[in-house]
């Protein structure tokens, strides 16, 4: 990914050319882009034609996490031979372009890089996919309702941490290159790009200013962290816990979640697969041990823990806040728990209720 303040050139991409660009990229990579379904939902899907992609949307229902950290993934295949086993670890890395990813979701990729792709045991399955992926991200024209990227510096646009970052301006997009992968893409597809004019640079910067002009932060993140760390949050947590039904929906849609379950599935009498699947700490069974002991049996404990993990612990262990302000958890919650309301209550001056 790009480094901060790289002096990479900036280009202009005509609006009409964006879909054509995606079609051209299909010659050498799988292209994943936002697609609007018959039910009016936008989801990231592999496309066969640039025209399938839509860029008229706030955000996709879920982040494109499935294309880097699949919901179900084979860690190993085994075959029993006598008393022994033949085992293989299928690690695949088809080249892919993920287009239309928003700043918030791209910020989550940095968390995946730290949490999964680094450390003492960098995950080879993730890294293979990650190295084969180029992102074409798109800045948001505003901070949408119930989103709060602007408080966390994960949007509505990014200054760094992208491959090729698009911002809508008159007639098309300002296309900023932020990494070698981005530069390669622009070079290979140079017929779609021309260097930006100075006025276009200015338009891009103005668009970024316009995007936050109407935004009013409802909480101060440092105050939230202090409140959580001091335990001065019992009422707010209790209110959220009384609404929570353990459905796990918030964490299913959360771009920053990386937890998983590993389990064996026989495929025949002597063969099988060890699969990794998404998992969530919202469930009591997530921490239950074989004998029945469970340090997180109480829902209050689980609700509090996930807030701490996203807002305090991730910062301590990965150096990044574990929330990107995408607002999906608020839309998903059947208990009407609004994270924004909760954070405002914890770290703002608002005595609002949580839902």
């Amino acid at each position, binding site marked *: 990914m790009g480094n901060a303040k790289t002096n990479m050139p900036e280009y202009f991409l005509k609006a009409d050319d964006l879909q054509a660009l995606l079609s051209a990229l299909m010659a050498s990579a799988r292209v994943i882009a936002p697609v609007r379904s018959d039910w009016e939902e936008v989801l990231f899907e592999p496309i066969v034609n640039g025209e399938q992609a839509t860029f008229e949307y706030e955000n996709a229902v879920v982040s494109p996490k499935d294309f880097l950290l699949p919901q179900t993934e084979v*860690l*190993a295949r*085994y075959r*029993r031979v006598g*008393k*022994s*086993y033949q*085992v293989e*670890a299928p*690690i695949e890395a088809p080249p892919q372009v993920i287009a239309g990813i928003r700043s918030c979701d791209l910020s989550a990729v940095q968390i995946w890089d730290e*949490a*999964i792709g680094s*450390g*003492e*045991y960098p*995950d*080879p*399955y993730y890294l293979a996919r990650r190295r084969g992926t180029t992102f074409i991200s798109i800045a948001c024209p505003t901070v949408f309702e119930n989103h709060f990227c602007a408080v966390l510096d994960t949007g509505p646009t990014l200054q760094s941490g992208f491959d090729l970052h698009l911002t809508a301006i008159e007639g098309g997009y300002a296309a900023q290159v932020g990494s070698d992968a981005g530069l390669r893409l622009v070079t290979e597809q140079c017929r779609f790009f021309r260097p930006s004019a100075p006025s276009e640079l200015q338009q891009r910067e103005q668009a970024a200013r316009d995007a936050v002009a109407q935004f009013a932060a409802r909480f101060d993140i440092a105050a939230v962290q202090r409140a959580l760390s001091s*335990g001065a949050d019992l009422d707010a947590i209790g209110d959220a816990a009384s609404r929570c039904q353990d459905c796990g929906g918030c964490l299913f849609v959360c771009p920053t979640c*990386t*937890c*998983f*379950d*590993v*389990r*064996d599935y*026989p495929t025949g009498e002597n063969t*099988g697969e*060890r699969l990794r699947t998404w*998992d969530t*700490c919202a469930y009591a069974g*997530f*921490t*239950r*041990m*074989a*004998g029945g*002991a469970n*340090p997180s049996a109480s829902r209050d404990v689980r609700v509090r*823990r996930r807030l*701490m*993990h996203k807002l*305090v*612990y991730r910062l*301590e*262990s990965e150096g990044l806040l574990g929330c990107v302000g995408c607002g999906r958890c608020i839309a998903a919650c059947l208990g009407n728990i609004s994270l924004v309301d909760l954070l405002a209550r914890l770290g703002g001056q608002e005595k609002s209720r949580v839902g």
Partner: protein
Amino acid sequence: MSDSSPYLPTPAALSAVRDETPDIKTFRVQPEQVFDYRPGQFVMLSLWGFGEAPFSIASSRSDGDTMDFSIKRVGGFTEQMHLLQPGDEVGVRGPFGNGFDVEPARGANLVFVAGGIGLAPLRALIHEVLSRRQDFGQIVLLYGARTPADLVYRDELDRLRSRSDLRVQLTVDLGDGKWTGHVGVVPELIKKAPEDFTRWTAFVCGPPIMIRFTVQALLARGLEPGRIVTTLERQMQCGLGKCGHCYIGGKLVCADGPVFTWQQLQEMGAEP
């Protein structure tokens, strides 16, 4: 483990199985590739078709190239383990975890306190310590289980009791007709111990409730929270610090533990 993926276990042959109690067996395995490890570290034992589970290595590197695991039958995976016979193959991934750091306790007096299967991880440390007995001061082992039939490593305990360079005391919650030893919970052995425990280092392992009561008893006898060392159990799926199941406060038991001091647990606001 394999170079291509940290999820692939090393094959290990089961060389011996021994019944310790009606529901605990000790398995001795010989991995295809021997690796170094510290007492208190654990591995993910793998049974293809049944998954993996974490187990402390109950022996020390100083014992040789094989590894011992003492496993209580409580659920799906351990049921399968208990069906295995010598000659069967299991998988081993590891070693994981921080292990016991016994260097700060060189020259110090040590008290080991264990309940039930909790003696297993401490056994590795005891073997290590006894392999260089001269590096340490007094050593006391206090161990208990529900009934005499539930005590593990009986033969080894008898051998330890016959040594003059450590004190071993056993207890059971419920005696049988033949038990002549102490009857009562393990913390009582601490309360009644003749030693002056100030500035001793304690190593504690057992069921969570036992750990909590034991630690209270140790604190009451003057031990410092920073010198009470325990090793924790958690649900684990990867052992690599990635799957998230073993969280404790803001840390992971597989990577930051499983060995913690009582002081560390209190600072984390966490419990066994």
